[in-house]
């Protein structure tokens, strides 16, 4: 089926051309995915702005709540916050602020939103990062074990536990763990702190004491996130492994005389991993935005807690800023999953 042109070139050149065309394909693939991501982000800007403009709010009243204020003060504050501007002008400001990256000026903190987000992004990354690692490890391991031998006691216990925790409201589970481990309950003494990121008054810096102190504060919020997320990894991994169980290539592997554990590890699991990788990356984006309740329960000074504070006024520039970070992280990790998938699965490359 070769065209007259390819028929004339040597086999080596064919290989070179193939490599070049694969590179080109990837570039096309990547740029298409990037374009999709950018379009989604632009759409989000508009949707986000419209949504937040629709929130019933009276920020001036919320900010000055209970304090003596004159009409003159209120008018000045309204003007200062830009609330007197027409909607289209506020949208133009919002887009301008987003493009330039300063994200506007928080009404309640009287500070640029970008500064606030930069301050709070690290605690969130620490929390989300550690929770993701732990829940991926636990979820995948349980998923493999229960998928390889479905119906066993381990499978039933693991699947039951995963579903139970997965279906729990995060804030509720957070409060329960807080009551159990942070305040002392029955014979259980208070093991972990009830909130914050470090012990007040203790010196900070990169000292071992401080690091241990932060880790100690991390345990409960991290545990809450792990418990509500590991179930998804377990379920996806389990069903992918189950899907592979009847495959002829496993029979072949067994016929070659491989041990059962080896068949599982070298043949079944690598194939079953693909859906899990997708889920993991999609999930990271969602977990970042899902930390709002956990951070609020544990006063963890991250982005989720910042979003919660913004919502209370509502402090629109701050709310829009945090919303932007949350949605951008979902889009970003979607993109990462798409690109990674191409490397992991040859079938995607061929398409």
């Amino acid at each position, binding site marked *: 089926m070769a065209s007259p042109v390819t028929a004339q070139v040597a086999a080596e050149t064919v290989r070179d051309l193939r490599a070049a065309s694969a590179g080109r394909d990837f570039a096309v693939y990547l740029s298409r995915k990037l374009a999709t991501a950018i379009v989604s982000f632009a759409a989000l800007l508009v949707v986000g702005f419209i949504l937040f403009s629709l*929130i*019933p*709010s*009276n920020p001036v*009243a*919320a*900010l000055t709540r*209970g304090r003596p204020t*004159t*009409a003159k*003060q*209120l*008018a000045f504050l309204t003007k200062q916050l830009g609330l007197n501007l027409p909607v289209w002008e506020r949208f133009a400001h919002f887009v301008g602020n987003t493009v330039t990256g300063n994200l506007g000026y928080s009404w*309640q903190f*009287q*500070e640029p939103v970008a500064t606030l987000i930069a*301050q*709070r992004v690290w605690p969130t990354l620490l929390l989300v990062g*550690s929770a993701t*690692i732990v829940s*991926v*490890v*636990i979820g995948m*391991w349980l998923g493999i074990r229960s998928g390889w031998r479905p119906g066993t006691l381990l499978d039933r216990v693991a699947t039951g536990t995963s579903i139970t925790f997965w279906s729990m409201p995060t804030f509720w589970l957070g*409060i329960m763990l*807080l*009551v159990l481990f*942070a*305040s*002392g309950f029955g*014979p*259980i003494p*208070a*093991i972990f702190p009830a*909130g*914050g*990121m*470090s*012990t*007040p*008054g203790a010196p900070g810096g990169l000292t071992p004491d401080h*690091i*241990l102190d*932060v*880790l*100690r504060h*991390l*345990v409960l919020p*991290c545990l809450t996130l792990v418990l509500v997320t590991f179930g998804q990894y377990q379920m996806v991994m389990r069903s992918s492994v189950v899907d592979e169980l009847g495959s002829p290539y496993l029979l072949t592997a067994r016929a070659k005389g*491989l*041990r059962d554990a*080896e068949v599982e590890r*070298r043949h079944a699991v*690598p194939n079953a991993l693909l859906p899990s990788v997708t889920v993991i990356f999609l999930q990271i984006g969602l977990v970042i935005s899902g930390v709002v309740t956990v951070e609020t*329960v*544990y*006063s963890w*000074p991250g982005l989720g807690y910042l979003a919660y*504070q913004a919502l209370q006024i*509502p402090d629109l520039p701050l709310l829009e800023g945090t919303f932007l970070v949350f949605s951008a992280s979902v889009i970003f990790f979607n993109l990462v999953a798409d690109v990674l998938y191409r490397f992991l699965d040859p079938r995607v490359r061929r398409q």
Partner: protein
Amino acid sequence: MKISRFARSGHPSGQRRRRVPGLAAVFALGIATAGIAALAAAPAATASSAGSSGSTLRVEADTSYSTFNPFLAYFNGDLNIIGNIYPTLTTINQQGQPAPYLATKWSVSANKLTWTFTIRSGLKWSDGKPITAADAAWTFNLIMHNSVAATANGALVANFATVTAPNATTLVITTKQPEANMLYVSNPITGIPIVPEHIWAKQVAHLSTFKNQTMPVVGYGPWTLTGYVPNQYATLTANSSFFMGAPKFHTLIVQYFSDSDAAVAALKSGQLDEIDDLTATQFEALKGDKDIDLYPSVSNTWTAIELNPGARTQSGKKFGNGSSALLDPVVRQAIEMAINKQELVTKVWDGLAVAGSGYMPPAYPQWVWTPPASESLGYDPAKANQLLTKAGFKMGPGGVRIDPKTHKPLVLRLGIHSDEASDAEMAPYLQEWLKAIGIQVDVQSMSFNQLNTDLPEGDWDMLSDSWSTGPDPTYLLSIQTCGDLPTSLSQPGNTDSFFCNADFDKLFAQQSSEFNVAQRANTIGQMQQILYSNAVDVILYYPDNLSAVRPGAAKDFFYGKTNAQGFYPQQNLFINWSSATPVASDAPASSSSTLWIVIVIIAVVVLGGGGLIYWRRTTAGQRE
């Protein structure tokens, strides 16, 4: 079968296989993370229990922090700190009355327009510069003449004409109208803090973005702000030379908890020594705890149901979709009489509140007014029914009265706060009691923001409302004057519930120039009488401020004697934080908690180690 530990990494592996060791690395990393985290439990736990028995007082912040700039700060969390690190002209004593602070004495001219304050000499800012009358004059003038500086406290100097400092110890304030509340204008926390001119003069140009977070903050007061960790806590150090007496603790940490149950947990575990604003449920739950003392104190807050008397602008333009039935004061009075307030106190607040009637809450006894028996609109459903029938509201089908003007059933909306547990508990009672007088109530639970949006638009019938006040009643009274109605639909005023009454306004003007406290209280009593008989704000109850202290950490935090109901007088943080005294520590870290920490560490090691061993066993074939 036995293969060295590192064999795997040297094993030639295909592309597929490479992923498996990758997973193992992630697994190991996860275990390590969990392990380190659990191990971390040990040292810091002992540190925290040792710290609370030293001379560090740990209390809960009222709100999260946003700025320590006293010209911009609105939130209580910020104001509580600012009130303790900057001086004021006067303070509020344990009896709730104005008392000397920077001003040692004061006098007012015969025409009641010129106030002369004598400023205490010999006091120094924390950087060693003297505190003079010029600092006070500079602060007031800045607020009077700079819109940004007026952001937070502009209303307090709205009546000031001039402020001058003829010499270092004299401050002269002239006012446009007589100002009876002059001694409340510059109080700790609720009033205007005086700042050092030599520091702040440099900040005027960029005041709107200045957050005052360079530590230590130059000021004067019982405490000096020496540390701040954004959105977590502020650290204050005692001013050992404070002229009213140095605080008993050396360090004060004010930490914010975004979840009140977390704050309770922190109190129980000794992470905090004192917390305020407990709910009745939390308060009851702490009752059995021998390590915690409970302090209910009388309230500076009321909770009410506002009845929409007809939303209108100052020029009388009507707007909003409030029920026309509520325009009739008799209907509003009938509603007030249908409500069993004592029952609400018992059922919703477990008795930790006082049933309401007068507009001024019980915290400041000098302003309290209670209705005479003849005027009482107390619980009397039979009389409420009579009033409604007499007003022409005939009983219709289903036990719901018919509005004679619209010929429609009398159905009223009740807006409650979705984030207030007590509102949700209260609503079914109100629904039932109003049903008994033929009014159907449609409960609408909404966010604080939704309520706040509906209110100035007049789109409501009944709303749950709550206000608190400082020792000066002026502002709380002002939001009921005609002058606070909106000027136009786009300019919502400060009005609380569109109340407007000429007699009330006359008395409001009168009390603002009455310098005799008893006389002023009498006038304010008459004003409360007008509010009460108009039944626009049906004051349901004054919920106690519920606080808790660890007696093992601090004593003498709260002051005063309990009343007949067992409630303490209104407390003042400015006094509480200084009077709190350390208690000698008893036992250090309890052995049981150490035991548990050890158990957790062992569990993690066993599980993690077991997992690794199992992993190696199952991959043994691969490594062969």
